[in-house]
């Protein structure tokens, strides 16, 4: 039997580097990060497949639509490298399997990734950085520009390697038994709490409606503040969410709606 072809550490690192730098480079409406994913797989493919036919098949396999939160999502690249290694060594893994795994992981990792990284970690670091800026000027942005890339860079590489090992060991074990669901739920709890807090701080909407009769002027906003401070902000979020999830409108449609609704509100002196 032929010797087992093991990917070198250097190949893995190059594969990760390609991804880390160029994951967003050629994003498009058709393939999203598809070319970038293939680019990340190049070192792996070059090392594993000497046969031209096999190589072409591999390249085509990874040029399909792909999209994930790229920083945390490097775990998929690792998993895929492991699958390719096994395939090149004769395991019965066809194109479909590899693509199924990629697609299955894309969804949760985009959700978790977007929630945790731009949705939670970045706002927290920026909030700290703003605080520092207020008391110590330029140290604030310096703090952010050092801490964020280091933390995320290391995590991304760690996750790539973790994905590679997990892929060899069978990622099914990790994803089954409700563990991945429990983990997703738990991380969503964190993300939702922080996003609620962000909404409270950064969404601003108040009504300008006033009722004046003789000497007495009633500001409607004051009444709302009495009922629930920030009520209009949270209602706005609920409306957006409703349009997207129940009415199945596209984000662009909703943006247009917000433009018009706000305009109407301003003209009618509601806002």
């Amino acid at each position, binding site marked *: 039997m032929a010797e087992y072809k093991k990917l070198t550490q250097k190949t893995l690192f190059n594969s990760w580097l390609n991804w880390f730098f160029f994951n*967003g480079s050629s*994003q498009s409406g058709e393939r999203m990060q598809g070319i970038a994913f293939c680019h990340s797989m190049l070192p792996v493919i070059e090392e594993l497949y000497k046969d031209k036919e096999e190589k072409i098949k591999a390249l085509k396999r990874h040029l399909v639509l792909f999209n994930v939160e790229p920083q945390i999502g490097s775990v998929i690249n690792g998993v895929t490298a492991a699958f390719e290694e096994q395939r090149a060594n004769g395991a019965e893994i066809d194109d479909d399997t590899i693509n199924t795994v990629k697609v299955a992981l894309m969804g949760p990792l985009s959700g978790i990734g977007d929630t945790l990284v731009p949705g939670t970690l970045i706002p927290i670091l920026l909030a*700290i950085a703003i605080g520092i800026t207020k008391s110590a000027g330029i140290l604030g942005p310096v703090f*952010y520009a050092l801490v964020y890339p280091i933390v995320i860079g290391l995590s991304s590489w760690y996750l790539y390697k973790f994905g590679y090992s997990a892929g060899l060991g069978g990622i099914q074990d990790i994803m089954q*038994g409700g563990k991945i669901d429990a983990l997703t739920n738990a991380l969503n709890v*964190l993300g939702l*709490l922080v996003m609620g807090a962000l909404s409270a701080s950064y969404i601003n909407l108040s009504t300008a409606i006033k009722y004046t009769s003789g000497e007495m002027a009633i500001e409607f906003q004051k009444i709302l503040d009495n009922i629930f401070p920030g009520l209009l902000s949270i209602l706005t979020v609920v409306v957006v969410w409703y349009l997207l999830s129940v009415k199945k409108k596209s984000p662009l449609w909703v943006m247009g709606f917000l433009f018009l609704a706000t305009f109407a509100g301003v003209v009618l002196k509601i806002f």
Partner: protein
Amino acid sequence: MFIQIALISLLAYLGAIGAPWILGTTGGFYTLGRPLVASALVGLILGDVKTALEVGILIQAMYIGIITPGAVMPFDVDYIGYITTALIILSKADPSIAPTLAVPVGLLGVTIWNIIWVINVYFAHRADGYAEKGVGSGIKAMNLGAQIVNFAMRFIPAFLILYFGRGFLQNLLNMIPPIITHYLTVLGGILPALGIGILLNMIIKDKSYFGIFILGFMLVKYLNLPIIAIAVMGVVLAIFWFKFQGGESYNG
């Protein structure tokens, strides 16, 4: 001034979504592209760090929670960071107009991004051709090549706006009727709800979890807790959420 403006426009490209050169998305869009970082750089280039940071704090706070799931961008924080700050310093305008100015600038950035996103389809098709022939280096070239478009679409508009706009900003702002200014301000306060709503739509499968969102909201509105305190509580809560759902032994 030409050189400074060129430098700022270059940075506006390097911090744009997709630009790979400074540690990829991580060092680019998510670091250079943040208004706080952008304003500091603009301040250093134009020699007025103090005003720049004043602007930076204002606009960073407004767009602190921006998320672009599935490439949907409610406003372009990178353009907002560089162009707003630079325009204000160059035209010696008052930092307090930054949030209003940020709205049209952010929307311009979004439009550009959406155009790029369509143009890039071209590179995908050419990459298919290289794959057909087994030329790996061609695929790499296509991935990198898309940056020519990105550079052109980011650098040129930024440069033009700054170079020609700096003189007119004050006049321009004076020309705009107050209702439009008011409209832009209200819009700036509403738009963050779009990003949040998109994310909610993505992660909430069970409506009861919306309760957690409301808790976070109330912790700020009623108890005035800072975001960091809430995040730490969230981590603790998440750990036990996982523990009690994950079927682990409780005494582990």
